[in-house]
């Protein structure tokens, strides 16, 4: 009964005429413990097919992500450019601000006030220059003494 059927399928199997379902049946039969004595020789064959199917690759597949790298690179580059432009604007704003302040400083609308302020400023300058000259005065003394001693 059962055995007849298996022998029948086995015959078809070697003719290459079995279906997947029949082949599964054969595999199941030969992996069971009660295989008929005269069919014992086929056991390793079907056992081998089942065993080989267990093999698996453990290896990771390295996928090339060149395109993504390029995208990231361009994003990074644009960030750098934006930062650069931003920094440049900030810096230039800082340098222009004091210039504006300086030009506004010391501007007078009233001419009299302007005159007074100019005189004050010039007086301050000449005072400071006189202080400078006073301290150099004694050099002239040296010069005179030198001329007395080394008569030319």
């Amino acid at each position, binding site marked *: 009964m059962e055995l007849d059927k298996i022998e029948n399928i086995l015959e078809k199997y070697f003719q*290459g005429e079995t279906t997947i379902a029949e*082949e599964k049946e054969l595999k199941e039969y030969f992996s069971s413990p009660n295989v008929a004595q005269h069919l014992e*020789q086929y056991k390793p064959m079907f056992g*081998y097919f089942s065993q*080989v199917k267990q*093999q698996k*690759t453990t290896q990771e597949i390295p996928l090339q992500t060149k395109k993504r790298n390029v995208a990231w690179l361009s994003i990074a580059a644009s960030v750098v450019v934006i930062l650069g432009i931003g920094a440049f604007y900030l810096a230039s704003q800082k340098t222009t601000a004091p210039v504006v302040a300086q030009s506004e400083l010391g501007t007078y609308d009233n001419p009299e006030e302007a005159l007074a302020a100019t005189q004050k400023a010039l007086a301050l300058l000449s005072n400071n220059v006189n202080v400078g000259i006073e301290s150099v005065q004694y050099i002239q003394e040296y010069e005179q003494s030198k001329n007395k001693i080394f008569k030319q």
Partner: protein
Amino acid sequence: MNQVAFIELINPFKDKVFRLAKRLLTSTEEAEDATQEVMVKLWNKKENLDAYNNIEAVAMTMTKNYCLDQLKSKRAGNLKIVHNNYTDREPQLDKKLEDSNSLEWVEKIINQLPEQLQILIQLRDVEQYEFDEIAKIVNMNETAIRVALSRARKKIRESMVNTHSYGIR
């Protein structure tokens, strides 16, 4: 298609590709290289993958062609270093009755078959592909596949019977 989608796409047949490569190339390392090669090729083609209605069949065909190319280039060299070339026949005689070893004979017997038959045995008896799928992968008609498969199975049986009786005597 991004990486995650691609991995999901190839996962169902990644191991089948590996096993077919191992069947033909024998060494695990070479089979892994071949698997990687095939997957990278698929990945590079990822824009056009939708055009194929059966990517698994395409992958298996690529694997088959790649491995046959590898074998051909290896044979072009003077030395053919294949696993079954330097197996020692003597020590296995006393181990023959062990069960795990009888599975190894089957492997050796299959390895001695012509490559075309090895591919068919792998696809049908191990991976259990239907005949129409095999026809797509190996580019043969179904009748020719049945005939070749029958020949391969009979050859295995013949060698098995021989080895079996040697084991007993």
